[in-house]
Every structure is written in C-alpha cells, then in structure tokens.
C-alpha cells in the first residue's frame, strides 16, 4: 500500500533526506528498483521472542518472573499485583474501558494485554517505555497504577526466603535486588508469546488454517480497508503514533474519581499550565515529546490476541470489534485535537471512509477473531510468604555496633 498523502508532520527532515537518498539508489540499482519502498511490511508469522543481550530468557528466570508478576509485594499497599490489571482471565489485560488502577484511584487508559509484548519496542499507549524491563517499574510505581516504592518493594523481597534463594541462584546476588525483579518479570512476559495462531499457520503454508470468510477479511485488511497501513508486520503494528479522532471517554466528565486522575496525569506529565487548564482529552505522545503535532497521538495497537482483549482503543472507547470497524469505515472520528478546538488538526490523513458493506465488515471481524488463536490461561502460582529473618550467626547486636564503633574510632584516631 502506498501512503496516499504523505503528511508533512509524519516525516522528520532526516527521514525525508534518507528516503530521497534511498530513492536515488533504487533508481540506479536493478534489484532495488523493483521493490516498492513505500510498501508496508507484510503480515508474517511471529519469530521466537527476542530478548535483550543482558537478559536472556531462561526457564528459571521465567518461573521466578511469574511468581513476581502475581505477587502483590510489588506494589505500594501490597493489595494488588501486575496480574490484577493484566489478568489472564481478561486477556492478560483488564476488561473495563479504563483500567481499575491503584486502590483509591482509577487509571486513565485501557489496560493492554501482556501477550506478545515481547516483540514490541514501544510499550504503553504513549510508547514511553522501550522495553519490558523499563515498562514494569513504571507501572508498579505510578501513583494510579502500582504506587510502589523501591526500598519497600526490595525490602519485601528480602523478607521472603523463597526469593532470596531464587535470586541467588538466578542472578548470583547475596540478596534480591529490585532491578533483577523487573528482569525476571520481563522474561516471564516474553514467554507469553503465541506463535501458533491460525494466522501463523496460514502464513507458514497451511492454507486450511483460516476460514474462507477470514481470508476475505484478510484480503480487505490488506486491500480495500487498508488496515495494514498501520497494522502490519508480524505483530500487526507499525509502532507509530496517530490521532484517529477517537472520541474522549465519557468517564472523565461523568465520574469524579476519573476527573481526578485525568488532571493528575496532565499535572504529573508536566504540560504547560495553559494546556493543563484547557485540554479535556488525553494528549498521548505529546506528553513525551511536547511537540504540538503529536497532540492526541497514540501508538498503533498490535492486533494479535484481539478477541480476548475488549474493549478497544486507548481508553476502551469501543466495546466490540464491530464498533471499531464501523469507526474506521466512517473514516475515523474527531476529538478536540483534530477539530480545531485548540487550533490543532492532528487527525491522520490516512483515514478515509471505506464504504465497506455489512458482509465485508463481518469478514474483517471474523479474520481478527480467527487470528486471535487460543486463549492463554494459567493456574495462578502461589505467592511465597514472608518469614522472620534469622539473626546473623555469631553477630550479637552489641557486637555489630562495637565493630562499627571500633572501625570508626580507629579511623578518627588516624586522622
């Protein structure tokens, strides 16, 4: 698919120069000239989950990560774990439009599935974490998410003999370090990769893997409906940012608790006071870049495992895939960052009315449902208990003080 109207906002100067350069090369090169450089990466089977060089996947680490993922010790008041907002029974996400958040609060965005996140380079709707290792502590420490604090979370791990033993075996440290906990959680999450969906089998050559209707849907997906413009490659996302004109969630005006969180986010993300006062919608990528052209843009969502992860969009604005497809069929929508309310018209020019008939819409839905594959369920692990820590052998506490004191006095005597 060619990008019909390249938006001047989308390409930075560098990108334009690079493109110009490669185009010239392509003109000269007999092989390159046959390749459509604007082509979207095709749908592809998932490769084995990649892992950072400093955090290779091992079974022991994944097992430890699973315990930590479901262990409420990793949050502020120890009442909820990663698994409470990324619930295996709710598609490893949370099935309210807006995630539940920390007790006494509510979140402000839809909780996304953990399944297949191993392949993503941009986590969160705002893309503000670049790895699973970076994502976990942001989630566990945010005031409306985990509200945990490093010293307390680490002290809790160190009060748990199971963890002391496991961290020692896996990371070789005398006592658990919190940073290693995020490594273990990330490793566990990488194991939640789903490489045997009908889509993967179809793309690997099993032409029976997708139904006839789904194949019609696939054709629309890659053709008339142009979903593949953004939802492409093995993960079905280009990991770029767009404002589709998704409407503002009603919760922010209708529920006081949600209003609190909405304002808090704008405050905490450091927008100028004028925008804190005036904006009533999620400015998305703008919070990271502070570029006006990024206001209201969110990272393209991956479409794998979709059947289990309703509702959809960054604040769960749509409950069903049918609603989502209707939205795109109409060419997207409008919000205050696209309709000029604040002098911004950031809607992506990619979206156009699609003129899909009911049958076409239905086959798109069937395609998306079929490629979701089997649900990944899990028997929740038991969380290891705290235990009383034994005294240090041979060290009375008077002696602990005395050792310190004698060291101290010897040092001051030398000075």
């Amino acid at each position, binding site marked *: 698919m060619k990008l019909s109207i390249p938006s001047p906002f989308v390409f930075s100067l560098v990108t334009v120069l690079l493109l110009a350069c490669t185009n010239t090369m392509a003109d000269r090169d007999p092989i390159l000239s046959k390749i459509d450089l604007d082509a979207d990466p095709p749908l592809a089977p998932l490769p084995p989950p990649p892992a950072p060089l400093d955090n290779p996947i091992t079974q022991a680490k994944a097992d430890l990560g699973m315990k930590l993922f479901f262990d*409420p*010790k990793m*949050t*502020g*008041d*120890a*009442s909820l774990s990663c698994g409470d907002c990324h619930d295996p029974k709710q598609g490893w996400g949370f099935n309210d439009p807006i995630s539940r958040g*920390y*007790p*006494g*609060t509510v979140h402000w965005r839809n909780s996304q599935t953990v399944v297949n996140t191993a392949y993503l380079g941009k986590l969160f709707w705002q893309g503000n974490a670049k790895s699973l290792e970076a994502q976990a502590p942001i989630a566990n420490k945010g*005031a*409306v998410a985990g*509200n945990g*604090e490093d*010293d*307390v979370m*680490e*002290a*809790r791990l*160190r*009060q748990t003999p199971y963890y002391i033993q496991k961290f020692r075996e896996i990371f070789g440290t005398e*006592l658990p370090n919190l940073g290693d906990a995020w490594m273990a959680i990330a490793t566990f999450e990488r194991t939640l990769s789903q490489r045997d969906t009908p889509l993967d089998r179809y793309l690997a050559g099993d032409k029976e893997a997708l139904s006839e209707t789904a194949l019609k849907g696939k054709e629309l997906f890659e053709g008339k409906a142009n979903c593949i413009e953004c939802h492409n490659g093995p993960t079905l996302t280009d990991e770029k940012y767009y404002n589709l004109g998704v409407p503002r969630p009603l919760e*922010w*005006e*209708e*529920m*006081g*608790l949600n*209003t*609190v*969180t909405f*304002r*808090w986010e*704008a*405050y*905490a993300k450091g927008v100028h006071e004028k925008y*804190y*006062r*005036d*904006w*009533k919608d999620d400015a998305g990528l703008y919070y990271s870049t502070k570029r006006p052209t990024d206001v209201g843009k969110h990272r393209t969502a991956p479409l794998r495992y979709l059947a289990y992860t309703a509702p959809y969009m960054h604040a769960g604005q749509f409950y069903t895939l049918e609603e989502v497809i209707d939205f795109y069929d109409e060419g997207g929508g409008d919000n205050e960052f696209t309709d000029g309310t604040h002098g911004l018209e950031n809607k992506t020019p990619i979206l156009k009315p699609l003129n899909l008939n009911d049958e076409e819409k239905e086959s798109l839905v069937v395609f998306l449902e079929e490629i979701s594959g089997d649900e990944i369920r899990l028997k929740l692990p038991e969380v290891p208990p*705290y*235990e*009383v*820590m034994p*005294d*240090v052998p041979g*060290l009375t*506490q*008077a002696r*602990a*003080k*005395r050792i*310190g*004191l004698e*060291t*101290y006095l010897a040092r001051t005597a030398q000075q």
Partner: protein
Amino acid sequence: MKRWGKFGSVISCFITGTALVLAVPGVAVQASGFPEIGPLPLKEVPKESLAKMGQRLFFDVRVSGDGAISCATCHDPAQGFTRQVGKEGKPMALSDAYPGTRHFRNAPTLINVVYKADFADTGWGWDGHMGANLNDVIRDQITETMMMNMDMRLMHERMKQDPVYVQMCQDNFNGECSSGKGRKALVAFLQTLVSKDAPFDNDSLSGEAQLGRLLFEGKANCVSCHNGPYFSDGQPHNTGVPENLEVFNDPLRHVAYRAVITNHGVPKADIWRRDVGYFLVSKDYRDVGSFITPTLREVVHTAPYMHNGMLQTLEEVVEFYTAGGGHDDPLATELKPLELNGVEQAQLVAFLRSLSSPVAPAAQKVAIPLEYEPIDDWLEVKN
C-alpha cells in the same frame, strides 16, 4: 550540637542548654544550666476556618495513596493523638503504618507538637531524620511510603475535586486548592492541639507533685534532658531501652524498618536486629540506640512509653530510670542509678501526672464522603 554519648552527661547537657538558649530566645535558663521548665508560652491562635480545613484533612483517608488511612489512624484524637489500642482492642506498643507495612516505632502524640517547632536545631521523629518545620514534617508524613504513600500532585487534584475543600481554599486563601494549602491548614489544626489546663501550668500542684518536681529538677536529674516548657531538649540520647523484638519477629515491621534504614543510607541494612536510632542521621556508631527526647506533656494520655512502647506505665518508666536506664547496650553511658525510694518514685510520678490536662485536648471526627462528585459543566470550565 548533635554530638553526644561519649562525653559525660553533665558536660553534654550543659552544652545543649547553652545551645537552646541561643535557639529559643526568651526561655530562661535555671541555675542547673538547663532551660527552665515552666508554662507553655502563648502562641498565636490560628484562624478558625483554616484550622477547620486542617481538621477535615486530618480525618480524610483520601490523603493517603490508597485511601485507606488518615492522620487520625495513627494519631487518634481519642487516644491522646497516639495509637494505643488496635482495632481488636489489644494494646499496641508499635504503631500501624501504611497498608502492606507495619511501623517499627511508637506513634508520638501530636498534642503541643507546635512547640517542638521552636527547636530549630532539632531533628523530628524519634530518630531525628526530619527537618524541624511542621509543614515539612507533614509533607514527609504524607509522602513517605511507610506513612501515607501519597503523591502530592494527586492530593492537589483530590482536593480540587471536593467542593468542600474548594470552598475552604477560597475562604482561607482566596484561590484554588493545592497540596501546599492543605499542609498550611494541617499546621493550623495542629496549632489548636495545645495543653490548656494541666495542674503544672495552673500552679495547682499537689504537695506530692511539688516534692516530685524537686526530684525532677534535683536528685533524679530528669531535667537534664526533659527541660524547657516543652520538657524536651530535642536531642538524641541513649537510655538503653530494651529492643522491642516484635520489630524483627513481625516480617511486615522488619520490612518497614529495613526499607527506612536503606533509604537513609544505613550500611548493612540487613544485619541490624536493633533500632539504630539517631545513627540513621549521624552515621556515627556512637549514636546507635539514641533517640530524640520526647515531651512529657500530656504523658498520662499517651501510654505506652519510649520509642518502641516497651514501658507501659509511668511507674515503670520511673523505675527504669531509677535503675539507671537499661543495660541492653554496654556502650550507653549517659545514665547512672538514681537511688530513689518508693515514696520518691511515687512523687515523681505525681509530678509527671501534673503535666497532663485532666482531659486531653481532642478533636471532633469529621465525616468525609467516600465518592468524588463530578464537576458541573466540566467541559466548559477550566481545569
């Protein structure tokens, strides 16, 4: 002035006394060299409407991160602004804390706490780790993970969502709510928690209490640390109070303890099975086990005693000092046995009782709505 312990108590106390004269002008020094005990000096009365706003915040669980506890949870007005009995009615030596942790110290009273702010050189908290400014201390307590684990920006937004606070902020500050205004209001509320009619202040000491006062300032030498109108020199001392081993036998308390000392850079946080006390601040091993002298005012209403609640009654406390303090720490040298007989001990207790009001200052609980109402015309008004 924070260096203590190794030197003889008389010398150190004398130095402290001098320091306090410098720090608190207007406090008389008595012949012994210590600031004179006496009635609390009058303070400016806070604006009533501001104190009311602070009182509402004091009882508002939404001031904590997960909306589970308020200031009053550990500083219960019905228990002398401390926490002495738990929810099941069992005595509590050690305070509760933020859910998911438990505290490793006894919650001190807030009555007269505003007078503590006069000690500019004093660290706050039992271990002196906080700055001597009531507003700062309140911020510390609200944001500290073990206490209320609250993001100040979230407190700001929660206040802005509550029409009662919005009105209170308008009335008192003529402006929109902020966490800073909330803290100012809490300071005003604490300013109202002042002893009013203790016999000591009314010159109505019983004969027994008068004899106790002579011992207090004389033979028992309590005044070497408990001096000035607030009955505290605001300095760290090691009196050898035995460890409360519940801190290390209750994993949640041990977690909290270790997290705090790690956070403050205490070396080898995992080996300590004793409360390092003022060492947390000074990193000087001679300070291990030293704690800031507490006030003795309203002491009748604030049992149990000591930083870890190890002593239950005033009689036990007097007995403890009569014996020359505890012997848990062979390096603690500040105290000597006092050789007080039973009658004298009773006289001291009578004097201590006279420092308390017949009825402790209290505050009416404020009912707080649990839900936040939406804002009318939210889309039309500015955030």
